[in-house]
């Protein structure tokens, strides 16, 4: 569920690229990236085994 939105927008962007709609493709990429950053924030919370 957390990763699903970014995959949806990525697929939409690929479809818009294939259709030749550059503006919608770029907008979909922006939303995909934003949702990916959200998913990263949610999933990258493990404690590392080393000290940084």
């Amino acid at each position, binding site marked *: 569920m957390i990763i699903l939105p970014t995959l949806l927008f*990525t697929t939409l962007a690929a479809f818009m690229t294939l259709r*030749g709609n550059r503006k919608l*493709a770029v907008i979909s*990429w922006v939303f995909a*990236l934003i949702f990916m950053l959200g998913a*990263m924030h949610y*999933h*990258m919370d493990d404690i590392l085994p080393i000290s940084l």
Partner: protein
Amino acid sequence: MPSLPMTTRVSAYPSYILNMLALAGICVSLLVAFFFQLVLGEIPCPLCMLQRVGLMLVGLGFAMNVRFGPSATHYAIIILSAITGAGVSLRQVLLHIAPGDTGFGSAIFGYHMYTWGFIAFMATIIFSAFMLMVDRKHMAGSNQIIQTALGSVLIGFFLLLSLGNLTSDVLTCGLAPCVGDPQTYIFQR
């Protein structure tokens, strides 16, 4: 002398070929990930799936270069996506960097897939920097649409792989947050 049609002129330009090859490379990487998932039975973890998304976001930039011509915006998309994907890869490398840790999943030529992912994202950034120099006089950034059969087939295949990853995520996690180390699909639970 009559001017060549748009498709002929663009197809002959090295940038078009290089971007097509880069997009093909992304498709091959996603296919390898599917091979590990479907043939070897290694269900992707959330970080693995995020790295696949990173690869797809990078692939989008290459696909836009193929479809709309090279543009600084498209290369920015590639670089920003690669930095994001590399962040996930590096995080997973650091999770398994301690002595005695055998890593997550199978290794290919001695490196785990997240290590290859980090190398691929770094190579993508270097490639984009190189292409920005190659394309400096040919930046389109316009509303042109380049229609070639090979380009359309490649972007169509990339779209299919995106749909495959979308389906895979739904079958792995359903509508709940993905678990750290999934062992089964939702229909096997």
